């Protein structure tokens, strides 16, 4: 079947795990341009033989008025594979939490079959619903069809990137903050910054409801918003007993693995010295029926994480240990976010991420710009060498 012999890729249609090759083949059944998926397979088979990719650097494509959301992609072998001479990516901004109804998804699919390859990524790494493979001529029709139905483009280039979050309060008892609500609010609040790339470089926001961090906010967002609490972990001792009766070795699995050694077990009664608890989520995540986070909810704000390019990967650093997120329109959090972005936008060189800028300037200018005091929660340990800056304002204290 098909125009090309693909013995290498055929190999990847065998085996139990769902096959992406099968998906590319299936796209030929529904797309108005079946030659796209077909030539994609042909070119991919060639890559498997030569161990080399055949895509050009992104080109300049987009929808009128925006600078984001569409990534130009052209085959470097357009004569051999004309179906993918243009094979652009169209990023649809996903609903927070990746919830859909079948009706909404089917409508998205219908439009995509008409104007694109029928291939998708559910979802891209940043979080967008990614449509893989369309032509330059189809971009404006796609935008008209999708935007008129309420589906806007996501971010790309030197812009705010599509914010993303965990499932949050929709289906998780550990959500200390309304992760989906915050994500949706931030997305709407920064529409201009998302669609019109005017920043020094990309800026990513991710929101997780607790320290389990299911959206990996701490590792891949310039601004990581992670839910936490103050006060006592709520214990249901009857459920603790059920775990013990069910065979859980609470002493070694829970008490013994607590990083702050703040738990004790007396028979089947569990006690927690909450003053000493660092809210890491180990015990809560293992005793889902017995333990729940405390009731004063908020978020820890961390900044700076990114992948290795340019001078090494970073995990986000604590900036604000605790901020309440239950006010109208998340006003406190939104203002803080705006202030952080403003400091970065004013100071960063082109292609400099927030974490890299902090490495150059230090934490102090950022803390001063956003009006946050130095606190021990921001560091793992204080500096070791006796070299430090003093400014006039320090002498007045």
């Amino acid at each position, binding site marked *: 079947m098909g125009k090309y012999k693909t013995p290498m890729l055929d190999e990847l249609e065998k085996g139990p795990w769902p096959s992406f090759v099968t998906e590319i083949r299936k796209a030929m059944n529904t797309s108005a341009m079946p030659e796209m998926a077909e030539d994609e397979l042909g070119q991919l088979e060639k*890559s498997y033989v030569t161990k080399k990719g055949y895509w050009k650097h992104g080109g300049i494509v987009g929808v009128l008025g925006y600078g984001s959301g569409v990534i130009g992609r052209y085959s470097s072998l357009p004569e051999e594979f004309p179906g993918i001479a243009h094979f652009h990516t169209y990023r649809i901004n996903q609903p927070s939490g990746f919830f859909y109804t079948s009706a909404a998804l089917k409508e998205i699919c219908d439009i995509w079959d008409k104007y694109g390859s029928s291939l998708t990524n559910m979802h891209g790494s940043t979080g967008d619903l990614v449509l893989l493979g369309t032509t330059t001529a189809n971009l404006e029709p796609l935008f008209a069809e999708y*935007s008129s139905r309420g589906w806007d483009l996501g971010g790309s280039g030197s812009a705010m990137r599509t914010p993303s979050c965990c499932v949050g309060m929709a289906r998780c008892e550990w959500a200390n903050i309304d992760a989906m609500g915050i994500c949706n609010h931030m997305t709407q609040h920064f529409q201009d910054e998302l669609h019109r790339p005017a920043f020094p470089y990309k800026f990513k926001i991710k929101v997780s409801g607790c320290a389990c961090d299911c959206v990996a906010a701490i590792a891949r967002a310039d601004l990581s918003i992670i839910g936490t609490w103050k006060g006592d972990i709520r214990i249901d001792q009857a459920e603790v007993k059920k775990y013990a009766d069910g065979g859980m070795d609470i002493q070694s699995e829970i008490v013994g693995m607590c990083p702050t050694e703040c738990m004790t077990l007396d028979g089947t009664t569990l006690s927690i010295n909450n003053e000493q608890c*660092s809210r890491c989520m180990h015990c809560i995540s293992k005793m889902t029926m017995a333990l729940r986070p405390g009731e004063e909810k908020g978020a820890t704000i961390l900044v700076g994480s990114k992948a*290795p390019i340019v001078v090494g990967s970073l995990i986000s650093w604590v900036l604000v240990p605790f901020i309440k997120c239950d006010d109208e329109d998340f006003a406190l959090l939104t203002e803080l976010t705006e202030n952080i972005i403003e400091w970065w936008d004013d100071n960063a060189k082109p292609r400099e991420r927030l974490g890299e800028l902090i490495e150059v300037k230090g934490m102090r200018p950022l803390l001063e710009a956003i009006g946050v005091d130095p606190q021990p929660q921001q560091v793992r340990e204080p500096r070791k060498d006796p070299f430090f800056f003093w400014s006039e304002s320090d002498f007045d204290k």
Partner: protein
Amino acid sequence: MSLPERQTDVGPPHFEKFLPPVIKENYGKWKSHEVLTPGTMVHTAESGDQIHTVRIASPRILATETIREMCDLAEKYCGGFIRFTTRNNVEFLVSDKAQMDPLVAELKEKGYMVGGIGPGISNVIHTQGWVHCHGACTDASGIVKAMMDEFHEYFTTKTLPNKVRLAVACCVNMCGAVHVSDIAVVAVHRKVPAIDDENVGKMCEIPTVIGSCPTSAIRPNPKDKTVTINEEKCMYCGNCFTVCPPINIHNPEHDGVAIVVGGKIGSLRTSPKFSKLAIPFLHNEPPRWPKVVDAIKNILDVYAANARKHERVGEWIERIGWEDFFKLTGIEFTFQHIDDFTFMRDTLRTSAAFKY
């Protein structure tokens, strides 16, 4: 044929439109959850209401036909309510408990893999690869498929001491959280890029190219309106290629993948950790990368046999020490393992206490 009128800056639809009624009613009021099987779980609200979730694997690249098939199943069993997870699994949100088992049965009958919850291997975070990226020096989807054909039982039935997060990145830009995964594959280059001098002058801003290099290996060559690269300094990151396509980093014969281990994201027990180098290089061997799969299987087996319950890969390695990790896995320790990039000071041993 006329098109509907475009709108700008409307953002995505509000998620509320897509929530099942039981979720809307209990939003923020969930009390507990229980994992029933590796592919099903039930969440209970303070009100006593419950929602059952059925999770299946996805290759992330989905044809619309497959999405429609999933939607049909969602309509048949759970009112059309469907979502995706942050690791690209698909979840059916079942409000009527009686529909869960028939849904699972039909999913299995249709060949879907039900699983991905709990201490095993969930879906693999990965990048575009040769399928769709200009910078790829391996095919992420192909490696994932080959890996998961081998490890799929950890998705559907078998368990490990804790969850093991796998990831594949097709270059060091790492779209996805590869740098903080339990075991990850990252494609790397090993040769200094080839410079097309004529086109560098035409297409690139020389100061930007020089500034893109993390090791200051790039010098201007004003005479020929191009740049030169100091071979002794270049660490083959490819950032110059990103800003200037005529500096070609690709070299199929010498490109391949490295394997990194021990990263984690959650703050549970220990702080989030970066993944660290286990194997500096394996050749690209499409279509099934057998040496990569074997290498990961070896690490996974040694972890499963030696880690304590609830220990993640990185926690286990920190407890036994990296010297023991190399001994137990039989992985050769090389010059490439000793950091000489930005974080060197933090990684060299500063103690006379260690194991042989």
